[in-house]
């Protein structure tokens, strides 16, 4: 077993080394017939396919050439977090997301944090994610990131004890929450007896909290806002989730072509004429929202939307311009933001980060490429990164040239030994690396369902958990032990 596992503190053969919150589950697992478990895996896959819980991979074809829909592999073994650890994490998440929202508001208003010299001015103002269109725009409750996905890993600290680290903040259009919900539904369907033996915190009320958050973020023009979900359409990789959330909330799922703006108000075309739209939960990137303001060729958004938005006639969730706070070049400053805006010590750790735009950090990075993880500051989805210890000499040399050519485009971090969790693979059960994405909702106040989406890197030794790169998911249990 892996040296730093969620289930086993040390060696798997020694029962006493099983971490207490996994003891019950492991006893149960040992009693299961491997053949029956295999049957359950197939059953799960069949159900996911029938229900159509799939994601699209760009440019891919099935072997019969009939489509581009893939299942995200679902693993039967849950990832378990003891409730006391979750309570600390939750406090840390509320603190972090609150500070990030304060930061975005500050950047688009008085820029106190820049005046105080905490973050270099040019790093914010010259950032491609900074939206000058948002300067002076007030958003409901001062909240910009209504839905935040914070990626967290568990890894040993200097003393060798497990600790949670924030790997990155996702404040634009974080996805994956539908898998959190569907994974739980699947586990309860396949193994109801597990849930009678364990006190697992429920998550199914997420769409309720989301609707509450969106309704609380409505413009001042109405106290009974009409909420819609804006999707790029059925060929988007996260389309299932868009449709799922709209249905669960009982709101319309709209595409750009369904919307139009008249006299700075947004309307949707219905069978009974135009109907006003007040809150748009958009799953479309900033660049595509309004062809008049951003990318002129975009057909995914709605011309005139930004006018209506700036006039305060419609809310866009998340707000435009949140990318300035989840950019990897801004990430190293989040602990300082927490102190600056809230006067508190950060509860959740950041991963130590070297900013390659600084000469000494670049030199250090170049000298230690084989030990570090190097990431593109605007990258996402696990692309454009180098995992030093896993890379070949040639890959490292190639990356070295890329890095020297554009150092300000990269950061580097020590390779954390991410925790692993027992996972079903071809040969049986083996440890695979995992992370956790809790979804934090901010409206009038900050709230979340216990846990989040656990992603697992199914390739042996891989640290990349993204579904576009062969990652899978696990049900996540917050457990009262």
């Amino acid at each position, binding site marked *: 077993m892996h040296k730093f596992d969620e289930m086993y503190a040390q060696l798997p053969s020694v029962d006493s080394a099983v971490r207490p919150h996994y003891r019950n589950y492991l006893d149960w697992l040992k009693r299961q017939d491997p053949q029956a478990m295999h049957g359950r895996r197939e059953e799960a896959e069949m159900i996911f396919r*029938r229900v*159509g819980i799939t994601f699209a991979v760009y440019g891919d074809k099935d072997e*019969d050439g009939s489509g581009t829909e893939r299942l995200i592999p679902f693993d039967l073994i849950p990832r378990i977090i003891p409730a006391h650890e979750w309570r600390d994490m939750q406090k840390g998440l509320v603190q972090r997301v609150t500070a990030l929202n304060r930061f975005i508001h500050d950047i688009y208003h008085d820029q106190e944090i820049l005046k105080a010299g905490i973050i270099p001015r040019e790093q914010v103002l010259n950032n491609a994610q900074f939206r000058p269109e948002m300067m002076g725009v007030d958003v409901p409750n001062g909240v910009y990131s209504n839905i935040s996905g914070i990626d967290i890993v568990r890894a040993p600290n200097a003393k060798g004890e497990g600790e949670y680290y924030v790997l990155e903040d996702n404040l634009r259009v974080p996805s994956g929450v539908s898998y959190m919900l569907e994974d739980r539904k699947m586990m309860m369907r396949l193994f109801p007896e597990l849930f009678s033996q364990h006190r697992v915190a429920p998550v199914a009320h997420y769409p309720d909290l989301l609707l509450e958050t969106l309704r609380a973020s409505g413009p001042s023009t109405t106290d009974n806002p009409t909420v819609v979900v804006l999707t790029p359409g059925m060929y988007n990789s996260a389309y299932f989730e868009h*449709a799922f959330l709209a249905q669960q909330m009982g709101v*319309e799922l709209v595409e750009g072509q369904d919307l139009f703006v008249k006299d700075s108000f947004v309307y949707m*075309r219905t*069978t009974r004429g135009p109907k006003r739209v007040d809150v748009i939960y958009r799953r479309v990137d900033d660049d595509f929202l309004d062809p008049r303001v951003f990318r002129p060729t975009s057909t995914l958004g709605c011309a005139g939307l930004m006018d209506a938005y700036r006039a305060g006639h419609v809310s866009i969730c998340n707000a435009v311009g949140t990318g300035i706070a989840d950019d990897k070049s801004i990430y190293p400053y989040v602990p300082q933001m927490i102190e600056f805006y809230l006067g508190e010590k950060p509860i959740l750790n950041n991963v130590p980060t070297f900013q390659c735009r600084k000469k000494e950090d670049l030199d250090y990075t170049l000298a230690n490429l084989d030990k570090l993880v190097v990431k593109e500051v605007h990258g996402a989805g696990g692309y454009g990164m180098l995992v030093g210890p896993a890379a070949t000499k040639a890959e490292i040399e190639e990356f070295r040239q890329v890095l020297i050519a554009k150092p300000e485009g990269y950061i580097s971090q020590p390779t954390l030994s991410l925790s692993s969790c027992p996972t079903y693979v071809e040969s049986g059960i083996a440890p695979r690396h995992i992370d956790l994405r809790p979804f934090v909702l901010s409206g009038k106040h900050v709230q979340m369902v216990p846990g989040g989406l656990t992603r697992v890197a199914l390739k042996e030794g891989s640290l990349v958990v993204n579904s576009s790169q062969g990652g899978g998911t696990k049900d996540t249990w917050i457990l009262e032990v």
Partner: protein
Amino acid sequence: MLSRTADHLFWMSRYTERAENTARLLDVNYQTSLLPQSAEVAQQGWQGLLSISELLPSYQALYGDITPERVMEFMVKDENNPSSIISCLRAARENARAVRGSLTTEVWETQNQTWLELNRMLKSGAFERDPGQFFEWVKFRSHLSRGVTVGTMLMDEALHFMRLGTFLERADNTARLVDVKFHAVEHDFFGQTQGKEQDHDFYHWSAILRSVSGFEIYRKVYRDVIQPERVAELLILRADMPRSLHACLNEVVSNIAMVSDDRSRESYRRAGKLCAEMEFSRIEEILANGLHAYLTQFLDRVNEIGASISREFLVPN
């Protein structure tokens, strides 16, 4: 509801219905081809089938000569043919997927399951092994889809637009079937058959009836030998025959009535007018003026009702 949503629901039902009718036609041709008949008659049957869907030119361009195997392949699994069963079921499923949030879980899963099973069946050669069973399967998936729709959907606009799609498509398909099959006997049909052998006629007309599940119904309604005038009456004017033009139009009218308001009266007016005319028509009058002329005009008017529904509800400016 969103116009685009209504549009997808409408077309989802249309394509499901079209797949069913294609399967019905193929099935009846396939069953007929098992009877002893001249090569010429067999050829006519398959050619007629292609003419119904206005596909003869595109078939000939792709396949050349008409053979039963090739026509069946073209109408079942050729994705270049927009009316093939695979194309229809794909389109039905794509439309369903685009609005899956507006469907009940059961309706969506039925559509998705149909699509997944279809691919499995075509890949495994199940269709070639037993075409009859395959057509039966397509029909029953359509029955299931309709039943699940009526049995689980909230009775609101979404359901009305789905029902509209079903019956508008069925009206179109039945009209085409009658047109081609009566055409196949004469250049145009004015109410009497001449010079054909009695037993050929029996198989011809009973095949048409079977393709719309109307054989037993005919016997029950008329309690007599099969006569073409009555077949025409049953398939056009009988309001209690579920696949007749009149029955379809009744459903179209009542579903449009449910979604119309003051700003959308035109579709309702057109459908209502056509329906009222059928209500008070007699088959003798229709035949006296020529069946083909009547059906051509009927198809144009159904087409206009569809266009009007699009303008008023589905794709407004």
